[in-house]
């Protein structure tokens, strides 16, 4: 398989875009997708100071990398959750990237260690509070990232949420009709009140596989191992289901999530009822009188055709 752009050997094919790319052209493709998201959702400008929430995983490190390569002023914050070897390893990966790559771009890594402020790691806290670990974790991360962004005067906070994350979350919200959460799925959330940082998701046009491929191609050393708490999460199930659909019909995830965003930005035209719409568009069939949007209804057309077709 060859690159559709330069005809050298391809390293990845993207069925949903009907494309295949070599290393260089793939990197350019990813940068272009991120640049488009930044522009179309008015995320930030080259003057803005950005704080990237990094975990050591592929998405957040790739995001930091892409923003630096695109010339943005992006620092990062890592929150050490105190989850044994997983936290130690992910912390090492983030530190390594910050020293080896980010520093050369003048970018800084900030670190918050949960144990230092709370006196215990996230799992111990969750047990103390009788709450699920992931919800305790979510609250702490949201709080720390927002606080750092606001207190240290960043213009915007960026997270590594990708197309798969957002499509899976949308599926979950729709399955349970959690309409109140749908607004939060926009790739840009405004600093609505004093004390809230503006939040953006520049990777929302890229699939998880594309981002992992970007990390491999650009030699970004991330933690492949998962947080042990993620095991059996609903998100994983939704993603699995969506990926099976994606395999059968490429582009499903993107149509699902982008279609939702389209609807969200363009509110329906002053709600015409179904009756009003039918009255506007339907008229009696010239041949049989049943309602149709065409002059002659599709049934009559079909019958006419069947009658004129040469009998055997």
């Amino acid at each position: 398989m060859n690159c559709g752009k330069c005809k050298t050997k391809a390293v990845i094919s993207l069925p949903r875009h009907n494309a295949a790319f070599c290393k260089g052209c793939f990197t350019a493709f990813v940068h272009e997708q991120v640049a488009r998201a930044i522009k179309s959702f008015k995320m930030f400008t080259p003057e803005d100071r950005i704080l990237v929430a990094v975990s050591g995983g592929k998405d957040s490190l790739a995001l930091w990398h892409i923003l630096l390569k695109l010339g943005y002023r992006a620092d990062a914050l890592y929150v050490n959750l105190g989850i044994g070897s997983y936290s130690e390893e992910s912390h090492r990966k983030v530190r390594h990237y910050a020293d080896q790559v980010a520093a050369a771009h003048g970018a800084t890594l900030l670190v918050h260690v949960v144990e230092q402020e709370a006196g215990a790691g996230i799992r111990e806290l969750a047990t103390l509070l009788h709450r699920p670990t992931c919800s305790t974790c979510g609250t702490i991360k949201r709080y720390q990232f927002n606080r750092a962004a606001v207190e240290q005067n960043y213009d915007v906070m960026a997270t590594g949420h990708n197309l798969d994350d957002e499509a899976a979350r949308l599926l979950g919200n729709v399955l349970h009709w959690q309409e109140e959460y749908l607004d939060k799925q926009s790739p840009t959330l405004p600093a609505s009140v004093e004390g809230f940082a503006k939040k953006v998701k520049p990777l929302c046009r890229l699939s998880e596989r594309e981002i992992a491929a970007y990390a491999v191609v650009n030699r970004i050393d991330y933690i492949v191992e998962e947080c042990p708490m993620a095991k059996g999460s609903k998100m994983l199930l939704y993603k699995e289901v969506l990926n099976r659909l994606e395999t059968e019909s490429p582009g499903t995830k993107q149509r699902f999530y982008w279609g939702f965003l389209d609807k969200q930005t363009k509110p329906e035209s002053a709600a015409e009822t179904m009756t009003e719409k039918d009255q506007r568009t339907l008229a009696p069939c010239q041949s049989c009188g049943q309602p149709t949007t065409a002059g002659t209804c599709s049934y009559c057309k079909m019958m006419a055709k069947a009658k004129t077709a040469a009998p055997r």
Partner: protein
Amino acid sequence: MIVQLSHPQRQVEIKGPKRTKDLLRELNLVVEAHLVIRGDDLVTEDEMLADADQIEIRPVISGG
């Protein structure tokens, strides 16, 4: 060929030569959720993998 898998970390031995997409199918893995890496390089689904190749199949889906 030696194939390195994750979640949990393990190695399996698979007879080559074999196309990437057939290797994934044999291991019951979905293309959309995995990358296949030979040495340090990503390969496409139509690539032929030889018996001597060092292969890593890396899952790309995270649940956080």
